[in-house]
């Protein structure tokens, strides 16, 4: 009888232990899946916010560059802190997209205007992350300056 009770209790104990182990295992698995989803959601949200800002800044530059007679130097109208090298203007931004120097920059807006001929210019506006340098968003276009009667002479 004693042996029977001992066995019964022992089997109940191991059953309870097994149940607890399974519960912990299930909870751990569920927690891991949830955490992975949350991390992915957070990363996706950060990427979306970054892309959203990139679209905003690049679209603004595109709106500006679509006007005839724009050059890399004229980018200073939009961003007085822009640095111009040849036909390319660079604007650097902090994490919160406020203008800053190259040293403390997280993002770089690169605006290039190439004059193909007297009436045609090809431009591109690209926003990169600074390190590592990865392209976030790019817009390109061609702008034509209309011919005027003076151009015939």
């Amino acid at each position, binding site marked *: *009888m*004693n042996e029977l*009770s*001992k066995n019964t*209790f*022992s089997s109940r104990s191991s059953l309870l232990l097994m149940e*607890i182990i399974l519960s*912990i295992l299930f*909870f751990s698995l569920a*927690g891991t899946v*949830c*955490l992975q989803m*949350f991390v992915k*959601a*957070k990363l996706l*949200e950060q990427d*979306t*916010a970054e892309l*959203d800002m990139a679209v*905003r800044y690049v679209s*603004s*530059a595109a*709106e*500006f560059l*679509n*006007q005839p007679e724009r050059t890399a130097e004229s980018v200073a*109208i*939009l961003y007085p802190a822009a640095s111009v090298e040849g036909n390319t203007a660079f604007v650097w931004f902090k994490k919160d997209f406020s203008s800053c120097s190259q040293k403390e920059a997280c993002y770089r807006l690169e605006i290039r205007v190439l004059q193909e001929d007297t009436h045609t210019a090809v431009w591109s506006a690209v926003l990169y992350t600074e390190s590592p340098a990865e392209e976030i968003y790019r817009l390109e276009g061609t702008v034509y300056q209309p011919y005027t009667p003076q151009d015939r002479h």
Partner: protein
Amino acid sequence: MRFRTRSRHIIDLAFPIALFFVFAVSSLSILILAADIYASTASHLRINDENRTALSYIAEKIRQNDTNGAVSITSIDGIDCLAMSALYNEIPCTTYIYEYGGMMKELFINDGIPVSLKSGRDIMAISSLSMEQLEEQLWRFTTVDSDGNEDFLIAAGRSVP
């Protein structure tokens, strides 16, 4: 019978309670994490909803009315207004877009009639809308939503006066 009658050890009580607390803390952590991510996403959605909607509305209005240099920025009663002139049935009219009393408003009125800013039609709630003419036919609009988030739009006119 020895197992049935043995005295209960403190661990018999402490272990389930400890396990319960571990579960509770873990669940709470995951819940807080989820709530934080949800709040952050909702906040970005709200920024898009208020600022971007207002700026998109302005951009579309400018494109719609960009003829003969009809778009300009004017100040009425100290408030900057985006003014878009047009002829309707040969009658000169102007559409004004501005911020007044926490609302973005639009007022369509015949030229020559005194402008009353409070009479404009409400478009949407907005904390602030500022306008700046960067160059001829180049404007910068800045909006601030109810949470203090700022957004901007650069708009350029294509038409020639």
